[in-house]
């Protein structure tokens, strides 16, 4: 009753079938155990809104939501997420809060090349979902793992701050 089959050891690069609910849609795909979730999303599912930067957890470009929480898709193998619910920037854009953040980023030039933007938005979304009135310090803290090589961060913090305040005034409604 070990549940472990020795033959598995000789099948290191054989693909396995995984199933997720991605942006509300059931999908199945074949992955090798060593394929990261970001590679699976971009290459297999053609969802290229999620970016791959450092691929070692340092830059935050690859953030997605797994079962409702922001995670680095470069720090998860796709097989680990089997059975999970994944929301990427493509799917989250439908929601009110994320759409508001996008509009505010646009208005305040909080993006230039846009490489960091999906990760910034996913993190900002999580922060605002958990903290009704974050201070600028809280915002900087939440973004401490997200690199931006273009904007100098100030406009990004401004945009998130503005959305937080607007939502605060509307009684937190999205």
């Amino acid at each position: 009753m070990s549940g472990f089959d020795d033959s598995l050891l000789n099948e290191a690069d054989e693909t396995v079938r995984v199933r997720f609910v991605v942006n509300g849609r059931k999908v199945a795909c074949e992955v090798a155990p060593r394929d990261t979730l970001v590679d699976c999303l971009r290459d297999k599912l053609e969802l290229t809104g999620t970016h791959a930067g450092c691929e070692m957890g340092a830059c935050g470009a690859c953030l997605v939501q797994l079962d409702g929480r922001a995670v680095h898709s470069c720090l998860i193998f796709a097989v680990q997420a089997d059975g999970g619910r994944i929301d990427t920037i493509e799917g989250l854009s439908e929601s009110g809060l994320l759409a508001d953040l996008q509009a505010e980023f646009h208005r305040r030039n909080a993006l230039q090349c846009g490489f960091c933007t999906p990760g910034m938005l996913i993190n900002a979304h999580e922060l605002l979902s958990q903290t009704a009135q974050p201070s600028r310090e809280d915002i900087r803290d939440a973004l401490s793992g997200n690199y931006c090589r273009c904007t100098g961060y100030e406009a990004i913090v401004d945009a998130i701050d503005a959305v937080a305040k607007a939502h605060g005034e509307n009684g937190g409604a999205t």
Partner: protein
Amino acid sequence: MDLGETAVKAKAFSYFRAATIDQALDAHARAGDDARFIAGGQSLVPALSLRLQAPRLLIDITHIGELRGVRREGDALRIGALTRHCEMLSEPLIAEFAPLLHAAAPFVAHPAIRNRGTFGGSVALADPASEFPAMTLALDAEIEIAGLSGRRRVKADDFFIDLFETALEPGELITAVYVPLFRADQRFAFDELARRRGDYALVGCGMLATCTGERIDDIRISFFSVGNTPTRVKGVEATLIGARLDAERIAAAQGALEGDLAPPEGDEVPPSMRLHLARVLLGRLLGRLGEGA
């Protein structure tokens, strides 16, 4: 394709999702110990991607129910190995009965990493720059370990042996950490000095004192980012027992620090600077402890 030194793709491995502790231990043994357990993966996945490690088998332990959950057991809090860093912030039992861990948690990495990283993984890895392993020393915690030959418990004082080396034998699993319940006659303090929030600390420290009024009956002080392992400063502790925390006593404790810490040479931060920062931090934290923080 030769990815050379810039490799960010792991070598091929097989993947097994264990449903029970026994399955995980058995799988490890059957792979001839050429295997790794994966919990949050927030340290292991980068190590695999950079090909610093290349096991044949990855054993996913995150679906093992027994490794989950936080609960009281007698006069200890049992913190399951799979407790995520973010739960250290959100779980009321931690805030009430292990407030030192609650205070340390915001300093561990970034929010998204805290959503995945686990307490057991952090303790097992024993990174000398990590917050939680050092706090198990300050808390006089016990680490519960499961192996093919059964279960045992190891005191934190005996767990950390050398750089990334612990009392864990190959193929053994941390199941939980037991922390004595925080009491009304205790005080704690935690802080770290880092270049940026979320970065690993240049120096960090946490402490837990048992007091009668203003007098310290017992105190445990643990530093991280000061050497090969998290480090208790027993010489400093000895200067504080039976004392009240006035300016003179704090200065004496700071003076004793040099005897307890020997930060390594050859780092980007010179040993003298690390020692200086440790003294500053110790002074601050003892000051807060004296104020009843």
